[in-house]
C-alpha cells in the first residue's frame, strides 16, 4: 500500500524540567505505510520512546500532530483515543510490563476486558494466540515463573490478541539474552511477514538492519536519517 497509515507532521514534545526545557522530540515528520517494519534507532535519550508514545497516543505533542488513517489523534476525545489504543494499537515494552499477580492467560485476556468480548470467547482467543506463540504449556503460569523470553512472548500475545493494525515495540529485546532476543526478533519478523505493521524502537542498529525494512535514526530529538534497508534482511 502506498499511502501512509500513520504519519507525523512537525511533531514536537517538550518537557519542563525545573528551569530547563527538554526537547524530547523536535520537528519530526515521518510516515509509516501499512505492512512496513520500521526500526527507530538512536542512543539513549535521543527521543525514540517519546516518539513511540506519541504515535501510540499515550502522550500528547507540544506542537505538530500525529495522523492515523487521515484522522489527527489530537482531535480525538479521550475515549476515542482509548479506543484507538485498544483496537488499532498493540504495545510491547522492554520490561514486558505483565501483571505479576495474573497468569499468562489472564495477562493476554486483559485487553479484551475493555470491550464487549464474552468471557468464553476471550479465553479462547487468548489461549489461541498463546498457542500460536508456542506458550500453550505455560499459559497457567504467572510471570515470575516464566523466563524473560517467555514473558516477552506473553507480552506480544497480549499486544496481538485484539488483532491490532500496528505494533509498537519499545526495546523488545533489551532485557533478553542473545538466544531469547533471536527468538523474539524472529517472531516479530514473522508477524510482519503476515502483514502486521511494526514500529520498533531499539538502540541496536545491527538488529534493526537485520529485521526492519526501514531504519530511522534519531539524535537529540530529531530524525537524522531515514533509510530503506536492503530487501534481504532475514535472520
Amino acid at each position, binding site marked *: 500500500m502506498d499511502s501512509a497509515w500513520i504519519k507525523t507532521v512537525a511533531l514536537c514534545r517538550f518537557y519542563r524540567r525545573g528551569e530547563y526545557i527538554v526537547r524530547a522530540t523536535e520537528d519530526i515528520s515521518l510516515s509509516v505505510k501499512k505492512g512496513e517494519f520500521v526500526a527507530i534507532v538512536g542512543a539513549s535519550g535521543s527521543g525514540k520512546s517519546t516518539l513511540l508514545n506519541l504515535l501510540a497516543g*499515550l502522550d500528547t505533542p507540544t506542537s505538530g500532530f500525529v495522523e492515523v488513517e487521515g484522522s489527527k489523534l489530537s482531535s480525538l476525545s479521550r475515549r476515542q483515543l482509548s479506543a484507538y489504543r*485498544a483496537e488499532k494499537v498493540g*504495545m510491547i515494552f522492554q520490561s514486558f*510490563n505483565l501483571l505479576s499477580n*495474573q497468569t499468562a492467560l489472564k495477562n493476554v485476556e486483559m485487553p479484551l*476486558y475493555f*470491550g464487549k468480548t464474552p468471557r468464553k470467547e476471550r479465553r479462547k482467543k487468548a489461549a489461541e494466540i498463546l498457542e500460536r506463540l508456542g506458550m500453550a504449556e505455560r499459559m497457567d503460569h504467572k510471570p515470575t515463573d516464566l523466563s524473560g523470553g517467555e514473558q516477552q512472548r506473553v507480552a506480544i500475545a497480549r499486544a496481538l490478541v*485484539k488483532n491490532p493494525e500496528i505494533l509498537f515495540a519499545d526495546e523488545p529485546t533489551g532485557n533478553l539474552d542473545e538466544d531469547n532476543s533471536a527468538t523474539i526478533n524472529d517472531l516479530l519478523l514473522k508477524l510482519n511477514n503476515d502483514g502486521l505493521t511494526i514500529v520498533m524502537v531499539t538502540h541496536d542498529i545491527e538488529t534493526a538492519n537485520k529485521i526492519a525494512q526501514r531504519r530511522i535514526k534519531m539524535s537529540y530529538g530529531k530524525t537524522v536519517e531515514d533509510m530503506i534497508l536492503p530487501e534481504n534482511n532475514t535472520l
Partner: protein
Amino acid sequence: MTIRDLIEISLGNLWRSKLRSFLTISGVIIAIAAFVSMLSFGAGNQKYITDIYVNLGLFTNMHVFPKDKNDSDTATIVSLNTAAIQRLTDIPGVKLVYPYDAFEINVSFADSHFTTQARSLPLAATKIKLFAAILNGRTFSSDSADEVFVTHDFLERAGITEPDSVIGRELIICAKAASLDSALMNIFDDKDGGMQRRLEMIEYDSLIDLDYRRRLMRRELNEGVRRFVEGFMSRQLSIYDTVIIKGVTEGLKSHYINVAPIIIPEKKAAKLSAGGFGLGRNPIDLYNAARAGMLFNSDENKESRTYSRVTLNLDPYASQENIKDSVEAMGFRVFSFAEQFKEIQRFFLYYNLGLGIIGLIALATAALGIINTMVMSIVERRKEIGVIISLGADVREIKILFLAESAVIGAIGASIGIICGWAASRVVSAVMQAIMEREGVPAFDPFALPVWLIFLALAFGITVSLIAGYYPASRAAKVDPVEALRSE
C-alpha cells in the same frame, strides 16, 4: 467488563496485600456490625409492638372519652352514658361498643380473702380479636352467667401456683354498692342522739328573728348534706355472689393491656357494681345522676350511668377518619390505636435514624481506612495502571476498576459485619431476656433482623465504600501513562 470480571480482578488485587486488605475489611466489619446491632434493637422493639397490635387486632379499636374542662374546644361537657353508647353504636362502621366498667370487689377463694379489681365485659366483646386473644378464644356462656375469668395476677394474690387447678372452682365475690335510701336514712338516723341534742339547742323564742332562722336553716342544711354523703359512702350494700372460674388468662403480663384480675359477664357485673340501684360506688355517678335529673330512676339501663371510657370495635374496611369525625362531632374525645401506631412508627423512624447515624459514624471511620488502602494501592500499582491504559482502558474503566475494589471491600465487610452484628445482638438478647425473667418482666426478644435491615446494611457498606473509593479512583484515572510506564 462484566461484574464477575470486576469482582475477580478486585479479589485478586486485594489478595495481593492480604494483611492490609484484612485490616481495612475489619474496619468495615466492626462498623457494619455496630450499625446492624443498633438498628436491629430498634427493629426488634418495633416488631414487638407491631406484633401486639396485630395479634390483638388493635387497629380496629378506638377508645372514646368524655371531654373535660381542660380540652380547649369544650363548649359543653357531654356525658358518656348509655344513651351516648347507643348513638355511638349507630355510627356506620362501628361493630360493637362496650364501656370500660371496673370496680372493686372482695373475694374469698380457698383460704384467701382480698380486695381486687373486677371488670365487666359483654359476651360480644369476648369474641373480638382483642379479648379472644387475651381469653385464649374462650367466652362466657351468657352475659348474666355465674362465670368469671381470672388472671395470673389474681392467682398470685391467691397464692395459687397451678393455673389449671382453679378452673371450675367456686369463687365468692362481694361488691359494695351505694344506695340512696341508705343516704337519706342516715340524715334522720338518730342513734347517737345528735338530732335530740340539736332540737334542744334551738332557741324557740328567737325563731321570730329572721337572721336566727336563716342561721339555723343553714346549719341544719349543712348537717343534712354531711349526713347524706356519709350515708352514701359508708352505708353501702354488700352484694355477695358465687361464681365459677371459667378460665385463667395471662392478663396484664402478656400484653400490657389493662385487664383487671377478674373479668365478669356484663349483666352480672351490673348487678354487682350498681347494687340494683343503677349507681356505682363512685360519688361522681351520684352527682351525674342528680345533674341528669334521673336520681330515682331504677331502670337498670338508665342514662344516669356514665363511663370514663368506652371502646369501639370497628369494621376493618370502614374509614376510621369518618368514624373519628362522627364521634368528635358528638362532643367526645377519641383515641385511635391506628393513629397511635402511626405515631409509634414515626417515633421508631427517628429512633432508627438516630441509631443509624451513630452506626454511620463508625462507618465513616472505616471509610478513612478504605481511602488509605486504596491510595496506597494506587501508589504501588502506578505502573500497572500505565500498562492498563496502554492496553486501551479509558478513564471510566480505570475508575470502575478501583471503585469495584472499594465496593468489594464494602461488600465483604458488610456481609461479615451483618453476621457479626446479628451474633452480637443474639448474645445481648439472651442476657437481656434472662434479666427480664429475673425481674419478673415478660421476656421478649428486643432484637430483630428484618430483610430490609440486611439490604440496608449491605447498601450502606457498599455505598460508603464507593464514596470512600471515589477519590482514589479519580486519582488512578488521572495517572499519566507515560510517567507510569517509566516508573519502576
